[in-house]
């Protein structure tokens, strides 16, 4: 009888521990899942660097929160560009940290204008989510670009 009680207490303790673990894991995952940021995009175009404020970026992690996509809304890669584009960067590798995640990917073809857009192939993407801040830098094709935004 005592053995059964010990076993039940052990199971209960394990279950309670799992529950605690899940709760610990859940919080960063929910932060990593769908978050919109607003911030400044800096493009180092051939004509010079220029900033665009109030650029919205959506961070969308997968269920397992080990990869994510980032959508940059209404961005321009040149101040003289007569259009702005929504650009999606898929396949970003996510490594969770205590306060957020480290993001990285390389040679990813972004999605824009209804399909893949190899002219702006993403190289050297490195970023971080820390608390409510998202920062990243990358090369869109040969154009160095960086972003810093705050969760909305």
């Amino acid at each position, binding site marked *: 009888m005592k053995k059964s009680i010990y076993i039940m207490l052990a199971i209960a303790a394990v279950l309670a521990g799992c529950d605690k673990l899940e709760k610990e894991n859940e919080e960063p995952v929910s932060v990593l899942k769908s978050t919109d940021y607003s911030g400044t995009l800096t493009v180092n175009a051939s004509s010079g660097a220029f900033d665009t404020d109030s650029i919205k970026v959506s961070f969308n992690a997968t269920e397992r929160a080990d990869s994510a996509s980032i959508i940059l809304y*209404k961005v321009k890669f040149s101040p003289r560009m007569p*259009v*702005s*584009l*929504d*650009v999606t960067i898929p396949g970003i590798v996510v490594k969770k940290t205590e306060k957020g995640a480290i993001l990285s990917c390389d040679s990813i073809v972004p999605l*824009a*204008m*209804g*399909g893949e857009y190899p002219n702006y192939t993403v190289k050297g993407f490195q970023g971080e989510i820390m608390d409510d801040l998202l920062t990243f830098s990358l090369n869109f094709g040969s154009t160095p670009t960086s972003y810093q935004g705050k969760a909305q």
Partner: protein
Amino acid sequence: MTTLVLISVLATVSPLCDTLSQYLPDVTVTALKESVALESIASAVSDISYPTLKSNGIYRPNSLSSIVPGLHIPDYGASMTSTIYLRGMGSRMENPVMGLYIDGIPILDKNVYDFDWEGINRATMLRGPQGTLYGRNSMGGVLSLSTLSPTDGARPVISLEYGNANTVRAGASFIIGNNALTTTYRHTDGFFINTYKNAQCDPYDGLALRWKWQNHSHENTCISNILSVNVSEEGGFAYGLWQNDTLYPVSYNDEGSYRRLSVIEGFKLHYCGQTIKTDIVTSLQLLSDDMRMDQDYTDRSVFTLQQKQLSGAGTLELTFRRADDNVIWKPQTGSFSFYKRNSLYAPVVFKRDGIETLILNNANSHIPAEIGQLTISDVTMPINSDFLIDTWNTALFHESVFDLGRWIITAGLRLDYEGGNMDYNCMARLHYRFEPVMTQDKELDVPYLGAVSHHHLELIPKLSALFKATDAVTLYATVSKGYRSGGFNTQIFSDILQNLTMNTVMQDLGVYLDKQFVSVSADNTEYDPEYAWNLELGTRLRKGTFSAGASAYYMDVRNQQLTVFPPGMSTGRMMTNAGRSRSIGVETELCWNPEQFRSHISWSWCDARFVSYYDGNLDYSGNLLPYVPKHTLNLGAGYSLRINNNTLDIDASLNGAGPFNWDETGSRQEPFRLKAGCRIAFVFGDWEIYVRGDNLTGTQGRTFYFKSVGNEFFASCKPRMIMIGTNINL
């Protein structure tokens, strides 16, 4: 008893211009609402009796042009067109500036203004704003038509006419007991060839029936019922391309047609009590029509327009007057109401050439080529638009006439409320691809639906004084106001959807153009009423066989409704309250009818200019209003030669209008042009055989001008026409 016979009409002496007045009794019947005889109305009046209508070949409203001074109804398009210009007012779209009454029943829809006039006994036109008694859409004047009545006592008449373009007009009028029946059929092969189809583009077949029943068996009461049915099927839109100072023949590849069924049922009750006369006029009006148009008017497959509508309306007017006519104070108080519901289906279909030139070229001109180019794979791209438009109006009016012997003072006021609501449900569907990024087409639906409404309250006063200087000479002065209803622009929705579709495609792609596709929104499709104040001085003279009338007017028009093309790459057009204008003019009519001779002169001069009009690009202030002729002129003379018991009638006329500008800038002008007409009739016994001609001078004028997607087009006058015919009194 006579008053019982006339339901809401007056026994009046015709003041002017029955060129064949010897055929008529002294007392004539009009269907006007005024409380005084026609000669005592302080407005410019044209009164045309049946013989004059017949001798001038007036079988449709546009034939009244210039015969009524200042009236210009160009003959073009199709029978739905009925563009009316009067005293510098008028527009090619939407509400008319002239009210039309048939036997006292107001005709609500301009699309049925143009019909065959068989059995019309009299056409009476009051010029200038008549808003106090007649309300909406009478700011230029009112045309009142009186039809054959059972009390006319006329014998049955059969008429038949044949002319070039296989034009046949056959009519019959009968009076049987309390019933007057009229029917007419008209056919023509058409006068203009569509060279693309190698066929006439404006054939016409129309049948009209009218039945009027009157019962005045009770001493104080008279009731009548009038049923009119018109059905027609026709081609139309004979517009030729104007390029390099050359007018090319009509050549378009898509359908141009108009089908119409109109039913108007009117009921009238007149009750004469001891102190008050009461008139009740009510009607039901049904219109079902279907217009199809090649909207680019070229042999390319650019875009087409259909307007298919089913509308029903009911009207009710109550009028109370004093029973005793021989009193100083003659008040008239009444109310008027109507409700109309119109279900309109108006798709615009862009065809392959239109998709390429109007949509893709426009879209891709905004997109940098290095990013990509938009393609649409559809052979046709329909933009479907369904509208449900409700219009309602209610008014109270009062007019007091003080008959002081030589002076007649009239003062009136109308309180008029009109409301409207439009539900719109539009949808564009297309399959697009953004190359080279997209490798396959994507279907996209662009819905656009909602509702807009408007409400307007008007006060419409009138004050006039008429002075009978002598038995022959009358002078009058009038200050009056009129208004033309506001409404909703439905034709602009294809433009809205076109631009919305492109913006939605771009949004769907995640591409945002710095310069978006611009169009108005549905909220901007409502336009307000137009107002006109009229100051008028006039005189009438009647001495023996000579009669004359002259009037001079100044009109101040505000909130002027003008057809404009909205900003952006527009394929639509819309009515908007864009300006203010003023018209100054003089109108005269002279008649001299001694014995067998008859003569008639109508002339008008009008200077109508924008006081202010800025369309967003140019300032047109000071420019002449387009489409408004500076002069209208009609000269007519006739002689009846007695040969034994028979008569030879010879009538000739010259009719002209112009010059006028075709647009606000005055860059295109139409000179004053005259057309000659003639009618020679031999009357023997109960038979009349005649030959008549229209445009005998073969005048090659133009009746309409417009621009469509950058091209200019003209409609030409109908060619010389010769007709032979007969009228038989059975």
